[in-house]
């Protein structure tokens, strides 16, 4: 059986690549601190020695569109090209190419369908920055095969937060029962409070510091019940109009396990949105050295 080597949840900030590679006058004042935090976070994945990455993210109206919108989708293909023209244009992201792990993708689809999750699939998926940002931050050599899992946090009607938690638990269980001698890291990215295209966007901090404080505590403590008691599809409008991306963090809380504290927690208060980084080691090998 496969081993879950790490569960990692993170924000995905499309400006990190440009901030971290810029020099001279173009380099923002917060870049050095941000890079230091990302490099420390990267070590938490490196230390887990993964063979395969399950990557939970959300397409931002790139390939998935309102004429045919899946709620949850697994990419099953030998190769995933990545990043799109408008991500090069706005964020300076590079075009990328990742190998797929088709056997695990097929396993997640079969087992997921049998467990009551009507997962959609794609055999030709061009992935976007929700998956490539964590590759850039956590595994910049992009040398491991991936299974992308896309969720709809973007186009209502969306599944409720409970469903994200349930799918996270299911993914954890399915990876653990995958009959392969592989070490799998389950990585998912979302947002804390975030506003896009509304009056609260691009402020000096995230739009709702109180929500962010509570959210970080829920995730760090594995407080699934506390989180579900407060977070609904309706409540997520209040912290910022793009805060439904927090449901991908909730999926990852499901994958990490109810009540399981994160072994690594870090945050960075940036303009526009707060960054947050979490790692769990299900094997208990939280060796900080």
């Amino acid at each position: 059986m496969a081993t879950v080597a790490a569960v990692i949840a993170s924000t995905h900030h499309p400006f990190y690549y440009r901030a971290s590679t810029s020099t001279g006058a173009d380099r923002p004042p917060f870049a050095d601190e941000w890079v230091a935090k990302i490099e420390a976070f990267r070590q938490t994945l490196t230390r887990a020695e993964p063979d395969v990455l399950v990557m939970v993210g959300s397409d931002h109206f790139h390939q998935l569109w309102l004429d045919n919108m899946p709620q949850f989708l697994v990419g099953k293909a030998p190769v995933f090209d990545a990043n799109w023209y408008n991500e090069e244009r706005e964020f300076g992201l590079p075009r990328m190419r990742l190998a797929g792990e088709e056997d695990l993708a097929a396993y997640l689809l079969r087992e997921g369908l049998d467990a009551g999750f009507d997962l959609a699939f794609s055999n030709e998926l061009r992935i976007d920055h929700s998956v490539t940002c964590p590759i850039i931050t956590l595994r910049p050599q992009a040398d491991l095969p991936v299974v992308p899992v896309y969720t709809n946090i973007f186009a209502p009607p969306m599944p409720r937060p409970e469903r994200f938690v349930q799918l996270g638990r299911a993914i954890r269980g399915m990876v653990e029962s995958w009959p392969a001698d592989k070490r799998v890291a389950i990585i998912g990215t979302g947002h804390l409070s975030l506003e896009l295209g509304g009056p609260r966007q691009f402020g000096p901090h995230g739009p709702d510091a109180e929500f962010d404080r509570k959210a970080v505590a829920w995730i760090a403590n594995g407080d699934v019940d506390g989180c579900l008691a407060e977070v609904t599809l309706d409540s997520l409008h209040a912290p910022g109009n793009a805060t439904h991306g927090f449901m991908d963090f909730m999926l990852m809380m499901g994958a990490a396990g109810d009540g399981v504290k994160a072994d690594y927690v870090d945050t960075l208060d940036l303009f526009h949105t707060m960054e947050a980084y979490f790692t769990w080691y299900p094997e208990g090998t939280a060796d900080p050295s």
Partner: protein
Amino acid sequence: MSKYLLNKFLYTVDRDPELVERYRADPAGTVAWWEREMANTVLNCTAGERSTWLAFTETERQALREHDHVTLFSLGAHPFLTLTLFIAMFERDHGPLEYQLAYAQAMNHITLPYPDIAT
């Protein structure tokens, strides 16, 4: 009201570098052409398999013609699509973050709950 069609305009223009420039330079002409030629294109189908029923309201047409992101927001267009396309068109005319902050400032009178974006 046709939130879906507003979003389809923003989506199909944003993903095409030539259309981004055309919409920036000639919004009225681009909106008229797009509604005539593209509005009823089913994106994943061949050209012959067109829809027959999609059209803008005059309010929507005018908001698109006038590059009016505040009205697009009030009509329930998807804020991510509007923001992304408008940054592509207008950020270049401003200093760092200046356009994004002005975009927000123009919406300062808008309070929760925001317009429903469900399609």
